[in-house]
């Protein structure tokens, strides 16, 4: 079995889901013959036809909205937004309709849709192409927000998202679309939603992160290990609903918590995690909960991007700070 990239794993999961269930349809800008600007839907129109792999007009509100109409009719639309910076017009549809149609009709109508979008910086793309605004989606009641950190995780979580009977926002860390390769058996095995994964066990500090940053966290943990600091790494994976239990168990053990995300600090999803730890894990904390994040500034154009995004150096410094706290 060949090793595949994260974006290939997305493609593989989409193909599996489409074979498995004829109700699954893909839609978005350039998802058809072009296979998506990142090639996540490569070859799928050829395999499944133009009706099931639909190029939409250039209209993001529409993409979010028609998916709801399709889903209410029992289709399972998997909609692609080309870059997260263009996904904001869908918030209206997600918040006012997708996330609540089940509730407001007492279960009569449902919305089994997935909204996929690449997010995050670090690829030298133009402005509006590099932000991490997952917190905007994760705050919305009734939505699930899922972010994979590896090919394996992408395959299993995306299958789970598609099979889930409720709306899921699935954000793909495009910086690592082609960074690592893994063997990912095309066996249709989904991963559980609603749980955080302990990626590496450790004793001294819990580092909580998701998406592309996981790779920098692992690199930081490797450096820390050389200096005798044992970091437990938690890949949040499903941001909402948040599996607080796994995080708390880890912090109870290590007594220290560092949260790492690319998104701006204030109101980032790290705030929620820190707040939960502060409420439910306070007594096990040996040091303050630290967040290593983007600044509360506009993500700069790509010449300065590397200074905005949390670096391995910033992560290790934060860990040192909590280790040395007394």
């Amino acid at each position, binding site marked *: 079995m060949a090793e595949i990239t994260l974006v290939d794993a997305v493609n593989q999961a989409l193909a599996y889901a489409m074979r498995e269930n004829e109700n699954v*349809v893909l839609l978005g800008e350039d998802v058809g013959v072009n296979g998506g600007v990142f090639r996540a839907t490569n070859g799928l129109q050829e395999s499944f036809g133009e*009706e*099931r792999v*639909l190029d*939409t*007009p250039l*209209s993001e*509100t*529409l993409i*979010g*909205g*028609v*998916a*709801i*109409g*399709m*889903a*209410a*009719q*029992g*289709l399972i*639309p998997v909609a692609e937004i080309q870059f997260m910076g263009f996904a904001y017009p869908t918030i*209206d*549809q997600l918040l*006012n*309709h997708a996330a609540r149609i*089940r*509730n*407001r*009709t*007492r*279960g*009569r*109508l*449902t919305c089994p849709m997935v909204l996929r979008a690449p997010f995050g910086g670090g690829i030298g793309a133009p402005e509006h192409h590099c932000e991490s605004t997952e917190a905007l989606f994760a705050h919305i*009641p*009734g939505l699930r927000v899922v972010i994979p950190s590896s090919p394996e995780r992408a395959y299993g979580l995306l299958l789970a998202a598609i099979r*889930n*009977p*409720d709306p899921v926002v699935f954000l793909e860390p495009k910086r690592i679309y082609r960074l690592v390769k893994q063997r990912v058996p095309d066996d249709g095995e989904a991963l559980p939603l*609603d749980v955080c994964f302990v990626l590496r066990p450790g004793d001294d500090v819990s580092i909580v992160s998701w998406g592309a940053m996981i790779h920098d966290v692992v690199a930081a943990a490797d450096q820390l290990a050389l200096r005798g600091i044992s970091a437990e790494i938690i890949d949040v994976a499903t941001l909402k*609903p*948040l*599996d*607080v*239990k796994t995080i708390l168990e880890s912090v109870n053990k290590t007594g220290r918590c560092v949260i790492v995300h690319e998104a701006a600090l204030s109101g980032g999803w790290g705030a929620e995690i820190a707040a939960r730890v502060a409420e439910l894990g306070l007594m096990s904390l040996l040091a303050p909960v630290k967040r290593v994040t983007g600044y509360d500034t506009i993500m700069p154009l790509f010449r300065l991007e590397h200074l905005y995004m949390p670096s391995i150096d910033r992560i290790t410094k934060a860990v040192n700070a909590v280790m040395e706290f007394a």
Partner: protein
Amino acid sequence: MVERYVRPDGEIVAQFDVRFSRFIEPGGKVVCTPLPPWADDSGVLIPIYRTMLQTRAFDAAALKLQRTGRLGTYASPLGQEAIGAGVASAMREEDLLVPSYREFSAQLWRGVTMTELLLYWGGDERGSDYRVPRQDFPACIPVASHCCHATGAAYAFKIRRQPRVAVCFLGDGATSKGDFYESLNAAGAWHVPVVFVVCNNHWAISVPLGRQTAARTLAQKAIAAGVASEQVDGNDMIAVRAAAEFAIENARSGEGPRLIEALTYRLGDHTTADDASRYRDASEVNAARARDPVSRLHDYLTGTEAMLSAADEETMSAEIEQEVNDAIEQYLATPPQPASAMFDHLFSELPQSMLDQRASAEGEQDHG
């Protein structure tokens, strides 16, 4: 300065007409023929007329409930009853209604009960759990956002080869919204079976049509999307139904989407939270009353063809009154849902991590 240059006109590469139709004028007189084949069929017309009367009776009752604090903010359909009833009567059961918040006559026709409508406007989600029609969308509050749903559902009909049509109602103000336009444009590009019905009542709360757009008609909005359209007298149920029948059956047979602009007038306040006297003249409203759709159909039905007798109408009104009273009673007798109801339909299954929130809500209600 040089003499003013006049550019050559350029070649005409596309041409468009907007057409208007009306069959029955105020007073019930026929002004256009041939009438549709069902226009002398009381078996077709009386049930529609009944739905219009139901709507009016329901409206009066709802306004009274609201004024006495037993209903929330409520949007009256007064003066627009012909559009919903006319259009819905041209739909099949298996078609899909995607209504805005003022389409009671369409909803009642399709089987939504008055009790359900009262529950919804009375702040209870169960009001949108229609026993029938199970697949219809609930009333949409964020104006025009539901247009996308209609196009999306129609796309599902198309690729499943179902001979069904989605019918989406919106207001004149709603046509200014981008999601309306995006939905119409996609419907055109995808050639899906959806009909948009614009109830042009000439006001969006306090904003008159002339401030909403420079477009002379709302039917012409469809030209931008390459979608066929027309304008009808929305207070003439016959004209509405004829246009709807044409549009719906066209769509069903694969001819693509269509937009109908139905000209009408909002006789009441925008909602019970509004005071229309702040921004429009009584004279305008009075003039509009003369075009009332219910009396127009009444005059037609009781006119030359004599399809409706006074006695029949009296019986009908009595039945409707009873229906309304029963609905109010049932509504007022419905106990509120428990606090846990907030959690019951949030997801297909409540995540473990939210069990404590549900417990807390239940606890508060018990001890509150």
